[in-house]
């Protein structure tokens, strides 16, 4: 049995498995599972396949970015040049929305973007898988983002003001009466709706892309490579939409941070008030 026949059998096997309908192309680990169904190690690997592919991406990012940073050349070339281009672009984007104060959030948001983007694109490589096509991966990233955003809010406002903000900044008896309701609404939005929307959007899009590629591959096998150009077109779309999804995640995270940070004009207003208090006007003016 040739390797090609094995591959076709694996595809059909995954596709025709009665307990689970195949939705993705076979990857390295599903092939191993097919060839070594009794191996505990392969089974364990299959159980943690998303983590395995995530670690591949993480290793790539860590090794390449640190390698680029270690070059430390004043006139960058090659790897350092490419990473500087990426970092500069991300810094420009984040500081464009958040202003100069956004510079401290660039590493988090940049890492998040690169991590999601490369995970999305990983599924395009043969025998690889997009870990972001599972909800577990995207919800983990969304939860970390949520915690980071709330942490930024607490750091920027102080804990008491942050709680007041969650309580809807109550004023008067009516405001105080509405505190429980505001708590529920704000906590639901901040800690449930935001991570849910972030994670579901990414998961649904990437898993749909994987399904699309799988369906075209299936059609290619069925119709003797006739729809091959359609698959190429789908691949181009997947490259594009994977980028867009990573970008949307970055954009929304940046916007959430910008919403939770005190507005710049409020700062200016506060500063003006402090100034007027420290230099009170004379009674004649």
């Amino acid at each position, binding site marked *: 049995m040739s390797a090609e026949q094995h591959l076709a059998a694996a595809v059909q096997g995954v596709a025709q498995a009665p307990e689970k309908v195949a939705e993705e192309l076979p990857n390295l680990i599903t092939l191993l599972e097919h060839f070594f169904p009794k191996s505990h190690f392969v089974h364990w690997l299959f159980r*943690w396949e*998303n*983590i395995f592919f*995530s*670690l591949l991406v*993480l290793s790539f*990012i*860590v090794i390449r*970015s*640190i390698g*680029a*940073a*270690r070059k*430390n050349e*004043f006139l*960058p070339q090659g790897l*350092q040049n490419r*990473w*500087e281009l990426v*970092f*500069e672009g991300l*810094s420009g984007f984040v500081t464009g929305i958040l202003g100069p104060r956004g510079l401290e959030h*660039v*590493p*988090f948001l*940049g*890492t*998040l973007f690169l*991590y999601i983007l490369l995970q999305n694109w990983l599924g395009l490589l043969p025998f690889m898988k997009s*870990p972001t096509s*599972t*909800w*577990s*991966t995207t*919800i*983990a*990233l969304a*939860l*970390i983002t949520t915690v980071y955003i709330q942490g930024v809010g607490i750091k920027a406002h102080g804990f008491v003001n942050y709680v007041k903000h969650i309580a809807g900044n109550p004023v008067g008896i009516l405001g105080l009466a509405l505190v429980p309701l505001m708590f529920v609404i704000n906590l639901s939005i901040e800690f449930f709706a935001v991570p849910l929307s972030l994670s579901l959007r990414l*998961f649904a899009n990437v898993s749909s892309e994987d399904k699309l590629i799988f369906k075209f591959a299936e059609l290619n096998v069925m119709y003797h490579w006739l729809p091959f150009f359609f698959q190429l077109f789908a691949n181009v779309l997947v490259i594009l939409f994977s980028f867009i999804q990573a970008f949307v995640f970055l954009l929304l995270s940046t916007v959430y941070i910008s919403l939770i940070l005190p507005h710049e004009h409020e700062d200016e207003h506060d500063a003006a008030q402090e100034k007027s208090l420290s230099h009170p006007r004379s009674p004649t003016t």
Partner: protein
Amino acid sequence: MEYFQENIHLGEVLVQMIAFLIVFFTIKKFAWKPLLSIMKARRERFESEWGGIEKTKQDVAALQKDYQSHLQKIEEEARAKMQEAILEGRQLAREIQEKARLESQASFEKAKANIELEVQKAKISLREEVANLSIRVAEKILTEKMDSASQEKKALEILGELERTL
């Protein structure tokens, strides 16, 4: 709820979170900070060098302006000196001309006086000569007895001699 349980594996979520946090803190310390600081240092150096270039440009422009004003001043001075020299030259020429004219006038006057003197001298000499000749003619006439023809001949000879002498 079943959908959540099927799609979200808590262990996987937890490991993903830990993995992401590890990579985030690692590359924040070892990649983001060094690269951003390199870029910042480069930007600052370019800005400072650019500022230096701008300052040098301004200095060069100021120097050029200074040189041009110097050149203009030098040209004006040269022009003034040339004018002065021309005026001096003209003055000198006039003086030389005047002097030459005066000298020529003086030498002309002198020559004229000399000529007049010479003429006077010649006149005196001629008068003396004529007187001498007259005396000699008279002497000869008185000393020699001559006929009228020979007297006439003699007188012509004396006149011819007189012409030769003059």
